[in-house]
């Protein structure tokens, strides 16, 4: 583990490396994430296209922009971002995740810089990115405020950050913890610790500490009728995303 002074707890890392090989099986353990992915990416793409003035009907619309994917896991977001033209760096605390991500990117013919690292170490090395993503990672770190401070510090002036996490509400306890882990078995038991879920106000405060101004919140909710996820701008009770920009 190269990342020193890290905010990531070892118990959390061990949990994910166990199932890392199954990252890319859309019908396997990460099926919920694969199902969740299109709507998350749509939010990221549309907000970043608006922010950077890019046309999404063009091939590789984000060419020339650098993107950092914090907590990239097996690369489920990094790869689409690379196909959309970003020059992508993906970091994760789990070495096996990075191993899987590298292997898969190579098979896909995508040049992505994957590193076992924490945002703090990149920041210490003076790196900056036009866009920084921190998706479903905030709820797994031991110090949310320090983590978001580091994320904010990695955003270049004029850049943007997008975070996605789970809200700490009774509804999220019922749906995301008990429902998803114990009833529907969407994710393995013990994937989440509800007490570490992050309220929007806490997320906003952390981003502010990193020098970012919050521009938008949107919920993401599962639509039973369509068996798919959709953005719910006013319902932040369970899964939600935030867009923030740096002046």
């Amino acid at each position, binding site marked *: 583990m190269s990342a020193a002074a890290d905010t990531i707890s070892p118990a959390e890392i061990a949990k994910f490396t166990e199932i890392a090989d199954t990252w890319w099986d*859309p019908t396997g353990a990460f099926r919920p994430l*694969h*199902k969740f*992915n299109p709507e998350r990416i*749509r939010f990221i793409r549309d907000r970043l296209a608006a922010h950077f003035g890019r046309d999404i009907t063009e091939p590789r619309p984000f060419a020339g922009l650098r993107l950092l994917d914090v907590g990239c896991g097996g690369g489920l977001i990094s790869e689409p971002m690379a196909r959309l033209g970003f020059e992508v760096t993906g970091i994760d605390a789990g070495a096996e995740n990075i191993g899987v991500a590298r292997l898969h990117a190579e098979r896909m013919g995508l040049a992505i810089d994957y590193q076992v690292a924490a945002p703090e170490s990149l920041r210490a090395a003076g790196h900056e990115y036009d866009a920084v993503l921190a998706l479903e990672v905030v709820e797994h770190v031991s110090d949310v405020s320090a983590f978001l401070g580091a994320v904010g510090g990695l955003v270049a002036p004029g850049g943007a950050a997008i975070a996605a996490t789970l809200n700490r509400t009774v509804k999220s306890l019922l749906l995301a913890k008990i429902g998803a882990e114990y009833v529907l078995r969407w994710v393995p038991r013990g994937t989440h610790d509800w007490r570490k879920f992050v309220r929007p106000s806490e997320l906003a405060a952390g981003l502010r500490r990193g020098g970012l101004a919050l521009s938008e919140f949107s919920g993401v909710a599962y639509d039973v009728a369509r068996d798919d996820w959709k953005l719910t701008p006013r319902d932040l009770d369970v899964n939600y995303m935030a867009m923030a920009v740096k002046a």
Partner: protein
Amino acid sequence: MESKASPHPPASADVAADIAADIAIVGGGLVGAALAVALARHGIKVAVIDRVDPAAMVDERFDGRASAVALSSQRLLAAIGVWSHVAATASIREIRVSDGPSLFFLHYDHAQLGNEPLGFMAENRVLRRALACALQENAQHVLRLAPAAVTGFSQDADSAVLTLNDGRRLRAQLAIAADGRDSLVRDLAGITVSGWSYPQVGIVGTIGHARPHDHIAHEHFLPAGPFAILPLADERASDGTAVHRSSLVWTERSDAADAYLKLDDAAFLAAIAERVGSFLGPLHLIGPRFSHPLGLQFASRYVEKRLVLAGDAAHGIHPIAGQGVNLGWRDVAALTEILVDAQRLGLDLAHPSGLARYERWRRADNLLMAGVTDILNRLFSNDVGPVRLARDLGLGVVNRLPAMKKLLMRHAMGTVGDLPRLMRGEAL
């Protein structure tokens, strides 16, 4: 899944030697070629495999059928740059439905719904030629593998792999089976079909007539089945005069069809004239006659890992409403919308949510049309007195209910339901 038939097993898993494309389309017919053009125009690299040499497909002897291109299908073909290459079409401005010799008939007039026609008639070879032109225009994104046959289909973690009869292998993110009712790829993937054959045969041919058709389509319900006279574009005779033409779709009982097909031209023409009536003036035969067994068939599922079914490979219906190929084009428009969306999200084109959305979107619509055509055929292809009376009263009622009639007309135009954007005249 292992490939089930492969006379040329690959010597090694030499992925680099495989032909690569984003999407592999098996079948380059009216549906497969339209899909290839639609995807290629949006920057998706496609390979099209067909058993038939593209040059042979546009011969009059290959396919003597004509298709009723619904208004929504015409919008799709225009949006993907195919329609401008369609050399000759006749618009359908009215549809007249009559029940044999009975007085009751249903009359659809496009003028009741604004100025747009209900659809267009185009000969399949004319459509195939237009599709070939459009494929040529998008050549930088289209790889044509024809004539070539698929002998094996398998999937691994990243790709669908098709083995060809010349030993080559094609690797793509997604394979699309558009290889017709007897889809080989569907069978290789283990997707079953259910359905039944009708005790009917579709006799198809083209007639010339002395009087113009005035862009009116006629459907006579005869006891053996529907007999349709569909307006085609005029042709110029060698002396420069216009030859008025119509396409016939004559549904006949299977046990009687053979006898009609064996008649000499004069007797065959006489049998046609008896059914058409006198309103088109003296008739003559143009081109060869064809016959097609009729059946209803639907695939148990449309989606398999890295494979989807489209067009007749997924659903085959009775030609009574002229909707078969239009359903296939709806599949094309829906798939294009879903795949272009996936591409613009940087996703694997075969990501399961997209494929699931396609199946949900198209299966219900296709099944509904299969059911409607089946019921219509059963209702009209008989001469049972009470049934006749009931349906004639029904036709008469429909003809007097403007709202109901407009809905049925919109069905013929293909503008009902959850239409893909390319069929609403919107760009992706």
